[in-house]
């Protein structure tokens, strides 16, 4: 079973995403605090990370850079959740190492299909 990390500070969105991904058969670990999530990811690298970009404790871009800097998570797929649709923000996300992104408000169904697509490509 593929293991996914969901890092999102908003509890409702976190639970929604975790629910949908679990429903289609992934093993999901959800984190509110990005620092704990980075630790967990480095301890045991997941198959994919769903990452919110705007979090108070640590920005999603920073999380992305940290994961990319470590050999264990250097190529782990990362899907960004962003509230900003501006090209500059998306570019920054890709520059930090994101694999894909969805813009809030996103359809949970669409997020699941993107995750599926990325993991099937990786397999």
């Amino acid at each position, binding site marked *: 079973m593929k293991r996914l990390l969901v890092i999102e500070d*908003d509890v*409702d*969105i976190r639970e*929604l995403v975790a*629910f*949908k991904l679990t*429903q289609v058969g992934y093993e999901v670990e959800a984190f509110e605090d990005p620092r704990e999530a980075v630790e967990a990811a480095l301890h045991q690298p997941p198959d994919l990370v769903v990452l919110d970009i*705007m979090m108070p404790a640590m920005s999603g871009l920073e999380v992305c850079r940290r994961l990319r800097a470590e050999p264990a998570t250097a190529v782990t797929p990362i899907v960004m959740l962003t*509230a*900003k*649709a*501006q*090209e*500059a923000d998306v570019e920054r996300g890709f520059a930090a190492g994101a694999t894909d992104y969805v813009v*809030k*408000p*996103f*359809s*949970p*169904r669409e997020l699941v299909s993107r995750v599926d697509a990325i993991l099937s490509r990786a397999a």
Partner: protein
Amino acid sequence: MRVLARAFVLVALLAGLGATSVAVASAVSEPVTVVVASVLAVVAVAGAAVVARQTARNVVVPLWKLRATVARLAAGDLAARADATGAGEVRELATWLNELAATTEDLTTSQALRLLDERTLSDMRRRIHSSLDVEAMLPDALAVVAPTLAADRVAVWLEDGDGVLREVATWTEAVARQPDGPMAPMTEHWLHVIKEVVARERYPLIVDDTSAPGAEDDLTAVAFASAGVRAALVCPLRTAVNGSRGVLAVHDVTGPRPWSRYEVALAEAVANEIATAVDHARAYALERESVRRLEDLDLEKTIFVSAVSHELRTPLTSILGYLEMLRDGDQGPLTGEQQAALGIVQRNGQRLASLIDDLLMVARLESRDHGMVVGDVPVAPLLRQAVDALGPGALERGVVLHAAVSDDVGWIRGDAAQLERVMLNLVSNAVKFTPAGGRVDIGACRDQGLVRLTVADTGIGIPLDEQPRLFSRFFRSSNAVAHAAPGTGLGLSIVKKLVDAHHGAISIESVPDVGTTVTVELPVSLST
């Protein structure tokens, strides 16, 4: 000339007397008579000689000198003056000539001074207008003026925000600058006195000698004396901006100075120039400050709008996400009514989402930094993308969407994403307002330096009286509202802003119940 005439008459008379005496003596032929006659003749001749010599001394020599003086004057020696000697008439003549020469010299000097003033003023003007920073430009300008005024120090004092006179610029001669020199800074008290006097007098204050008898009764003289100044000129500066005022003060440290009217006039002219320059600089500073504030405000607005849009999107994500989950039956099956009710919630949630998108777009377009990524954008793919994206939806509604474009239409210089947005907005509008059975035709053609894009529909049209307001934000036509067509009323205002940002033009022709044609003209890319 009367003197001369009298002298000649006298000489003639005496000579005549002499001659007559000789003639009488010859005729009488008496020895005594002859002697008398001869003596008379000698006396007469001697008298004539004396008269002639006196004439020479009193008349001829002074006249010669006068002639020489006139010659010197004519040769340009304006300082030449005649000696007032000789006979009364000649003296009078010399006095007249001297008066005439003095007037000529005075006139010539004043003309020269005026020329010098003009040159000084224009040089100063050039320097004063070289910068809009008052405190930077003034010392330079004062340095130009000071030598012409032969001043030891020239200072500009301006009222600050509290109405207190402050020295903003000064030029000081090396001698006056010496630390053990006679000059001392003017105290605030005396500056205040000068300000009051200037405000009352409205004319230049002229102090020839601060040590002259009676100067202690003149407050201005006492003020300058306190600063070790012997003579001073004070001209008011009247600036229009802020209504604030100031003073141009010309100092002479070394001695009493009878200021000439040219110097006073020059100082006044300088004061006027400075007042104008200070006005300009202050107006510019105010302008700059307000521009800066607007920029700050603009930045704040952009930050605010993106923060708000983020804050709105987060709850909307939960609302729409959980709704989707419910409607997908993830939490159990729903009745038909429940599905329909949640459908309405979802539609309105999505409407809210696009409203946030559009608002964010408007805010971005209105901020100074458009974030435009400019490149060469091919026209044909723009149209085909719009058809690909919106064709299936149009078909579902029973509307034919057709694009007629050839690849040789060319390229537009602009931001590809923004131009795509223009096309998508216009085409989706056209599809949205066209009833089933209608059609939407999009096309592109080249017209010299322009690419003309057209989106023509057979839709409901826009009422004539509402057409002028089409590009206003949040404007929605009455028939669109009546048809319950979804929309935020921001689409066309965004399109207009995007077209404007591309130096293009947009126009709309519409007939209610017949259709609408939107035409966008954009400059063709020159590099392709």
